[in-house]
């Protein structure tokens, strides 16, 4: 197996051990960036999604505004504002925030991704909660359940199931959107491909290879979500 690989690598100029290592480094960064952003984003989005359905405008309107802004502007603009914008403000640069977090390219990028995916996920959760059949809520109320108990037992479990297909889409979009991390010097998968392209002037080889890796990650994600949907949404399937 390794011998065959070595033979294959010896035959071309571009996919050498060092470039493959470069791609691997990019792969690790992309996975870290996307999954950290998704996990933190989901943790933020859950309370926001619930509060967004609140009838009190002082609670729901600010969240609406946040979602509106982050869904209404391109991710790359948000990234530029957070990455280059913060570097221009001297009062930020004197604090620990700059030394520990913002001076590395990784964290401004992660912040932009988290804020962006949290906005989309908030809207997905809000939509799923809104679509809870009124009869279920009325029944829960008739049993004397409090708001918290209704959320915990009735609304959220069914809302999660309804949100799952839309959230699977968001995960895949996030993976693909992460490609813009390469514009702020992060060597993610796309950044690695750009480095290799500019070193060998071989756009097809460099980018086709990286496209294939993205496809593999996407298929793995789709497979995982399909499995999860089959399990959680089994009761919605036709019997035969």
């Amino acid at each position, binding site marked *: 197996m390794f011998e065959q690989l070595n033979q294959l690598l010896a035959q071309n100029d571009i996919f050498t051990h060092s470039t493959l290592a470069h791609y691997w480094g990019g792969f690790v960064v992309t996975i870290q960036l996307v999954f950290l952003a998704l996990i933190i984003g989901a943790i933020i989005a859950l309370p926001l999604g619930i509060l967004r359905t609140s009838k009190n405008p002082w609670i729901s309107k600010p969240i609406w505004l946040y979602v509106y802004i982050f869904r209404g502007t391109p991710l790359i603009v948000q990234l530029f504002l957070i990455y*280059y914008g913060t*570097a*221009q403000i001297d009062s930020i*640069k004197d604090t620990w925030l*700059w030394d520990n977090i913002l*001076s590395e*390219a990784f964290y401004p990028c992660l912040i932009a991704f988290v804020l962006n995916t949290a906005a989309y996920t908030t809207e997905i959760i809000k939509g799923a909660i809104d679509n809870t059949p009124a009869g279920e809520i009325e029944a829960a109320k008739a049993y004397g359940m409090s708001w918290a108990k209704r959320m915990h037992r009735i609304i959220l479990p069914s809302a999660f199931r309804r949100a799952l297909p839309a959230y699977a889409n968001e995960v895949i979009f996030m993976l693909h959107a992460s490609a813009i991390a390469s*514009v702020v*010097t992060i*060597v993610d998968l796309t*950044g690695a491909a*750009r*480095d290799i*392209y*500019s*070193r*060998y*002037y071989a*756009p097809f080889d460099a980018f086709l290879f990286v496209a294939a890796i993205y496809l593999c990650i996407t298929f793995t994600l789709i497979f995982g979500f399909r499995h999860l949907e089959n399990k959680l949404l089994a009761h919605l399937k036709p019997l035969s």
Partner: protein
Amino acid sequence: MKKLIIAISCILAFTASSLQAKDWKEVRIAVDIPYEPFEYKAPDGTLTGFEVDLGNAVCAEIGAKCEWIPQAWDGIIPGLLARKYDAIMSSMSITEERAKKVLFSEGYYNTPSGWFAKKGANLNTADKTVMKGKKVGVQRGTLQDNYVTEKLGDVIEVKRYTTADDLVLDLTGGRLDVVFLDYPVGEKTIITDSNYETVGDTIPVGDGIGVAFRKRDQELADKFNKALKKLKEDGTYDTIMKKYFSYNIKI
């Protein structure tokens, strides 16, 4: 119907023949702007700079009309091969890898590269123990990128940027310790700010800058070479050079 077919084939035949007989009355040249002082927009919006002036002089010499086409660096070679323009005069260094894809003219200038950092950084860029862990900015895929990666790649963190603008922004923003750039570019963009300085001596990198053509356009390359040689000899080159530089970049 028959007449129509004849008419169409006539038109096709004419256009085909006019495409083949390329006499280079018009040359489209790609530039990546801004790259001061080689190519940039003057305050009134006109394209100017050393390479633009030199290119226009070459075109006048070979009796062609120059059209300048702005093109981002990343796609500049694919654009040439896709015939979006006929030549690249955008400070492209002659390298072995590039020569596999394009045809280079004789070199028409060479500038040294230089290190730039904030004043008081106290760096010795040749000393690996001093440079250990430093963040060094370069433009992706340039000679400076190759140089830094080869010499110091194992101890420093190389940050690669698409444009010099982003690079300078991150140096002044404080994300980079030092950058390695074409000296004239750093001179115009970085040390204009008195908080920044050059570190150490300038370093000559590479075989100079050439005009890039498609491999099959040998005839056009010959014309350019002849014109460049003449301009270098009759003093036109020196006049243009003195307009932009206080030192010699002629090769």
